[in-house]
């Protein structure tokens, strides 16, 4: 290739990159982090982050009473103006006169009376209680209602509404944690799809406000934690990528001593990433962050292609064939993930396959490098590198032994919480009673009255579980609203004389009976309340936040406090319309299915790749050797990964798919060297390629293995082990071939 030809190609590739980047700017990928891409394809849809409980949160402002309370008030003011929030509460909200009037009017619907409530002794006792209320500080507010209602319906109702308040003390007018360390602020996010970035921005805003007052704010809640974990992981991933990128550039500068060549080498990678992104967006209409994350797999391979070419120097033609064949084989293995039928796996497959092919084609079009890589000491080491012939079998046997001794289990879903947040979550039970993050009840009903009845039917089972010590507390909407139906029960009905007699018995003025009787008649004729009426009452907001309107009617989520592992057994058979939920189960099952799908289609991908390679090479011996090297590297990496963190996670499985691509590339290089007996330059080029690629891959993934984020560690360790094994085995194979052909 002449110089002007090379320059033209380079300009063409640069123009292509610019066009792809422009396309991404004009049609930015629709990045998603929703669980639907993982779960929905299997029919069962449940995402805790989208449930009403998932939107609730708690802000802890740690500091001395007065200071923390003042800061909490200011933060509450800022948050109340934030459109992302539906509720902000730092102290109990008092029912207004309007609410009390409303409850008083509807009292016989919301707290229907039994015959026993309307007998003379009960009415007299209520009159006594109302007189006592006059002596209380609440007398000026509540006594008037209580005196007018000797049936006790209003008293019961107000008791139930007030019982919903958090069981934590008040200090300086603000809720305070039980350990007296933090002011508490209860919040609910508005009902909108989860947006990790927007939620993280909210977390940062609150933290900054508290920090300004010299205090610390911790925000806890399903969405709030998910956003912080996501941001923490993202920040750590960026830091790791930054360090790895810096080390890579430094290493390549040492090796090539040509910054411009370095920039040229990055062209296929950038084009590959752009093509991958655009392909996924075009095919799926969105790009899931998990798929984007596995762009790392693409990075690991796409950067290898120009390095292979550089390593081959004058032997570029051989290298091009190896690159195209390797890329096609790996792309095929990744494309098989489409068969899993799980959106996110399909996206990973398309992203890596299309990106890899694009990167390989671009790499082949690059003009030759002006400077050769300088890795003479490594090359000398590789020339002498030997391993026993049976070492690949020995590694496979070792891996099998490790798997027998430490059989893989289902990995538990893990979240990498930032340290301070992890501490706050651990300390939470000391601060206030919290509902179980794992178990909940779901009650479905046609209307409020049926919901109330089903709640009442559920209550005995809950009491039974509490008595057995399997549960501390559960509050149902049916505990507050005890509606029996559309009408207030007509019998027994009280007469004016009943009120007079009850007042007289209580030593009170019988003349007041007319006031009580009139209030009673008004309540009897008031129509029943509807859900929108309840929604207008701010005091009921925390309770109604657990209520969802569905096409069939209503759905209530009941949080369970102090739920034990065996709670389901203690609750026994549930009434119609009530379901016991293990909130973690759909996530666990979804991830298990994802993992299973990835494993199966990973195996299918390997078989397809080997089949394709067999057809392309038409050399069964070479194919067997590539398969053996790959199997040894992959199986031992998988065994070691399983040893370090029990159970192979989805991340490790995808890391193994990357290793498949690497083993195919290295195996093809070794095969091409072996196919040219007597061509020492070809053998040296293969060695140089393997060393260059293995060194860059190791730098990137070993840095990742040092990350404090578990996911990155898992990927980093698996790939690092694997690439070391595969490189060591391949180099030993090249050396053995050389000795056998007498070239050494």
């Amino acid at each position, binding site marked *: 290739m002449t110089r002007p030809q090379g320059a033209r190609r380079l300009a063409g590739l640069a123009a292509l990159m610019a066009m792809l980047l422009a396309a991404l700017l004009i049609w930015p990928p629709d990045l998603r982090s929703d669980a639907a891409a993982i779960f929905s394809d299997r029919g069962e849809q449940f995402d805790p982050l989208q449930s009403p409980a998932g939107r609730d949160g708690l802000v802890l402002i740690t500091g001395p009473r007065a200071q923390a309370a003042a800061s909490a008030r200011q933060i509450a003011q800022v948050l109340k103006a934030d459109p992302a929030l539906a509720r902000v509460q730092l*102290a*109990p*909200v*008092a*029912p*207004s*006169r309007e609410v009390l009037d409303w409850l008083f009017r509807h009292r016989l619907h919301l707290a229907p009376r039994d015959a026993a409530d309307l007998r003379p002794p009960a009415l007299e006792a209520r*009159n006594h209680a*109302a*007189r*006592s209320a*006059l*002596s*209380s*500080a*609440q*007398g*000026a*507010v*509540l*006594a008037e209602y209580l*005196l007018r209602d000797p049936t006790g319906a209003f008293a019961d109702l107000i008791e139930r509404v*007030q*019982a919903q*308040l958090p*069981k*934590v*003390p*008040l200090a*300086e*007018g603000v809720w305070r944690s*039980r350990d007296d360390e933090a002011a508490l602020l209860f919040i609910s996010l508005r009902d909108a799809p989860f947006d990790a970035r927007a939620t993280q921005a909210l977390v940062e805003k609150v933290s900054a406000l508290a920090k300004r007052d010299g205090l610390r704010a911790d925000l806890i809640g399903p969405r709030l934690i998910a956003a912080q974990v996501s941001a923490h992981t993202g920040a750590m991933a960026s830091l790791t990528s930054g360090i790895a990128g810096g080390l890579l550039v430094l290493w390549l500068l040492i090796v090539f001593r040509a910054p411009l060549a370095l920039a040229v080498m990055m062209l296929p990678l950038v084009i590959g990433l752009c093509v991958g992104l655009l392909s996924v967006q075009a095919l799926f209409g969105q790009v899931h962050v998990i798929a984007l994350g596995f762009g790392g797999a693409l990075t690991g391979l796409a950067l290898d292609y120009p390095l292979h070419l550089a390593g081959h120097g004058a032997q570029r033609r051989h290298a091009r064939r190896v690159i195209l064949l390797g890329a096609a084989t790996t792309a095929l293995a990744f494309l098989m993930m489409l068969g899993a039928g799980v959106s996110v796996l399909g996206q990973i497959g398309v992203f890596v396959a299309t990106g890899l092919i694009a990167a390989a084609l671009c790499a082949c079009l690059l003009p030759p490098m002006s400077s050769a890589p300088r890795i003479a000491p490594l090359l000398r080491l590789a020339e002498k590198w030997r391993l026993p012939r049976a070492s690949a079998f020995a590694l496979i046997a070792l891996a099998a032994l490790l798997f027998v001794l430490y059989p893989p289990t289902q990995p538990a879903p893990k979240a990498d919480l930032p340290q301070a947040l992890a501490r706050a979550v651990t300390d939470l039970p000391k601060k206030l009673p919290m509902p179980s993050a794992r178990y909940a009840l779901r009650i479905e009903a046609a209307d409020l009255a049926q919901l109330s009845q089903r709640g009442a039917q559920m209550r005995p089972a809950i009491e039974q579980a509490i008595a057995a010590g399997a549960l501390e507390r559960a509050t149902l909407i049916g505990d507050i609203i005890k509606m029996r139906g559309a009408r207030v029960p007509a019998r027994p009905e009280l007469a004016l004389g009943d009120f007079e007699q009850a*007042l007289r018995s209580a*030593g*009170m*003025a019988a*003349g*007041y009976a007319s*006031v009580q009787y009139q209030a009673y008649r008004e309540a009897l004729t008031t129509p029943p309340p509807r859900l929108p009426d309840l929604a207008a009452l701010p005091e009921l907001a925390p309770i109604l936040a657990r209520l969802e309107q569905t096409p069939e009617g209503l759905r209530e989520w009941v949080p369970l406090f102090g739920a034990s592992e065996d709670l389901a057994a203690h609750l026994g058979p549930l009434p119609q319309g009530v379901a016991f939920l293990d909130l973690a189960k759909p996530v666990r099952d979804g991830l298990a299915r994802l993992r299973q799908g990835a494993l199966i289609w990973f195996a299918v991908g390997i078989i397809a790749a080997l089949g394709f390679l067999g057809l392309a090479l038409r050399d069964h011996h070479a194919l067997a050797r590539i398969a053996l090297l790959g199997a040894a590297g992959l199986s031992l990496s998988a065994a070691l990964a399983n040893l370090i963190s029990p159970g192979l996670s989805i991340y490790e499985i995808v890391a193994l798919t990357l290793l498949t691509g690497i083993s195919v590339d290295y195996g093809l290089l070794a095969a091409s060297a072996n196919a040219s007996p007597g061509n020492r330059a070809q053998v040296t080029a293969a060695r140089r390629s393997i060393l260059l690629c293995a060194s860059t891959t190791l730098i990137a993934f070993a840095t990742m293995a040092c990350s404090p984020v578990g996911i990155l560690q898992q990927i980093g360790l698996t790939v690092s082990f694997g690439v070391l094994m595969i490189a060591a085995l391949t180099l030993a194979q090249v050396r053995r071939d050389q000795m056998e052909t007498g070239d050494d």
Partner: protein
Amino acid sequence: MARDVATALAARPIMIDAQIPYREEVAHPALLEPAVSRGVMHLEQDGTLIRRQIEPFAETAQITDTQLILLTPSAVGEGQDTRVLEIPPELRPVLRTMRQLIAEDRAPSGVTGALTPGMDGQGWRLGLDAALAENLSLTLLGCGDVLTGIEVLQADGAPRRILFLDETP
């Protein structure tokens, strides 16, 4: 009798150990006799009035500008049961004036009224302006420079009288 309205407004209740003992009498059309309670009051630094009732049953109330928070020992488990009530807007000026009369050294600003001799010929009564208490009638009871009580006549005509005592109940 106090010399003038300003002197009457400057009168303060007797404090014992930073607390004000009181007796409260509440009349109501449903009652044959007023309901009576006793206890102590004091004011917290942030202006919250604490009303600690001792008889006829124990109860603590935190009274802020807008809310009344009742704290009673929890019927079940540890901690306290909290009941929160909004103070009706028409009562707020009365409670604000009460807090000022108990806590502040200077007389409440912008308050005027009519000064008359006490019922029994001793002491004085200061009926405050209707503008202060809207539909309520608020009267201060005193003897010399000591505030001995506050009387609130509610919209239904039933009186609520808080008498400050010179000994703890």
